[in-house]
């Protein structure tokens, strides 16, 4: 019996059929058109590979890659897959090497992926070896296009992807540059989690200010984010990226907090240092949450700065890798503050753990009725437009407008 998918009416972005989150064919097409298509994917920070020969392994889409520092000014990203037998070359998370050597048969590549050496290429005592027409230059590692933009490294599998700054668009560039200005960065540390949900749900979550004070009682209770504070939701011209920024208000109970479940004005933090922040960036924004389609979320809140990388593993599961970042010249007190503020984020975060939990619950709902229901994003109407009102899902609609074009769905 053939399964009949529910219809996704043309131009509809305010409702998304559940199968868009569960169908293996849709997922495969996303890998081809989005992850390996004309999009920049987050790789890491320049300071993670500070010296020539430093390397770091990671996964882009589902493909393992190696980020290396091959010269003082250049970072390379190559596929972590030997041209010989397809073996993963580099098994460590990070390290330092003069070249990349496959453990299986010791094929050796330089740091930019050029094949340098094949043991016994000419055989042993004139016997065996590679055919005379074997050309090492036809067997290099696949090298991705790379751009290093103010300390963050991005790579793309496509030759046609526009330059990063153009890809992000002029509306969001100032938001990127505000936090990631080129000031030298420092890795504070990592958190990793695996979430049983579709990768798009994490982007949707960060494009959705509607949930922030309703789901996250911690936000509303301690005044970190409330729907009545000054906020802005901006998108690039394609609708795929967004930035939610907001300025913490004075707090206190009012008509808005009356509508927030769990809000209790009498609840206090025993140790207010958990959220006490020092102003360190231009502008008054206390939150800046950029969704950089499809692979990254860049967040600034209190004194926590993070890059969060999405690594899809199938329609119903993705890894979420948090790199907590500081500035190179942070004093000891600021370093301590960033560690403390990280309590809000990651798999144990006072706030973020709520998100991974609801994403899993959403995915479970989709999978049980994949060809029947649709996820609704009608808040704030059907249009895609920047907003200052937080009762809106416009940026999710924006992403699906772009998604439907690139996926031809």
């Amino acid at each position: 019996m053939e399964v009949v998918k529910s219809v996704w009416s043309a131009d509809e972005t305010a409702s998304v059929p559940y199968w868009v989150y569960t169908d293996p064919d849709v997922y495969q097409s996303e890998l081809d058109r989005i992850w390996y298509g004309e999009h920049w994917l987050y790789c890491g920070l320049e300071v993670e590979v500070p010296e020539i020969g430093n390397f770091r392994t990671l996964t882009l889409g589902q493909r393992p890659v190696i980020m290396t520092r091959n010269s003082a000014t250049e970072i390379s990203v190559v596929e972590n897959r030997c041209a010989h037998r397809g073996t993963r070359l580099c098994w460590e998370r990070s390290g330092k090497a003069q070249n990349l050597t496959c453990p299986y048969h010791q094929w050796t590549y330089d740091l930019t992926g050029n094949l340098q050496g094949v043991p016994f290429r000419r055989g042993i005592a004139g016997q065996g070896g590679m055919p005379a027409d074997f050309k090492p230059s036809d067997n290099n590692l696949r090298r991705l296009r790379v751009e290093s933009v103010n300390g963050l490294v991005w790579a793309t599998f496509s030759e046609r992807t526009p330059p990063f700054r153009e890809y992000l668009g002029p509306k969001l560039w100032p938001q990127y540059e505000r936090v990631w200005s080129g000031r030298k960065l420092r890795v504070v540390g990592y958190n990793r989690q695996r979430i049983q949900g579709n990768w798009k749900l994490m982007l949707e979550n960060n494009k959705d200010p509607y949930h922030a004070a309703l789901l996250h009682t911690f936000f509303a209770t301690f005044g970190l984010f409330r729907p009545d504070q000054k906020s802005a939701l901006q998108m690039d011209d394609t609708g795929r990226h967004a930035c939610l920024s907001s300025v913490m208000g004075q707090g206190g109970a009012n008509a808005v907090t009356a509508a927030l479940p769990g809000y209790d004005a009498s609840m206090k933090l025993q140790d207010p240092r958990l959220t006490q922040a020092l102003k360190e960036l231009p502008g008054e924004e206390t939150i800046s949450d950029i969704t950089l389609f499809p692979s990254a979320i860049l967040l600034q809140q209190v004194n926590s700065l993070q890059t969060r990388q999405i690594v899809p593993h199938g329609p119903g599961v993705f890894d979420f890798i948090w790199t907590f970042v500081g500035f190179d010249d942070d004093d000891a007190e600021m370093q301590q503050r960033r560690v403390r503020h990280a309590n809000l984020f990651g798999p144990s975060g006072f706030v973020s753990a709520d998100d991974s939990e609801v994403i899993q619950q959403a995915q479970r709902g989709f999978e049980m009725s994949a060809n029947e229901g649709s996820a609704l994003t009608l808040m704030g109407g059907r249009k895609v437009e920047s907003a200052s009102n937080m009762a809106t899902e416009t940026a999710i609609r924006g992403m699906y407008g772009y998604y439907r074009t690139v996926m031809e769905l």
Partner: protein
Amino acid sequence: MGNTSLGAGSIEDIAAVQAFYADYMEVLDDERLQEWPDFFTEDCLYQIIPRENFDRDSALCLMQADGRNMLLDRVQGILKTQKYGPQRCRRFYSGLKISRVEGGVIHTRQNVVAFRSLLDQPTSILLCGASYDQLCRSDSRLLLQRRVVVSDTEIIDNALILPL
């Protein structure tokens, strides 16, 4: 091997420390979370930290508290503000060793495994690692002045809500 298998502590120390951890596990496993901060000193350090951070001397944790007040905030978060599915967590500490006793501070090391049981799902391993703690005596009671749980588990399955 003689005393070396007991580590640096006396028989009395070992017995007291073992009883301490049995109480600690009981309070957490029986979901008496409000009592959990009572096991710590006022100025304690509490960390559940990924090994990749620990090994590079980074203090970035999964769960962190510097001071008992921050543990109280963690309890308040878990009980009042955070959203998560119904679950039980059961902790298994084993291989307790007193690695040294210095200035009245007892340094311990043991393995840590935690299992999580969710509704409609088989029980799974939440985290596997080891703890490196420091206990001191206050009014003849043992208290944790430092508890560092280093997680071998590279990637957390969804979320780590409850303390270890």
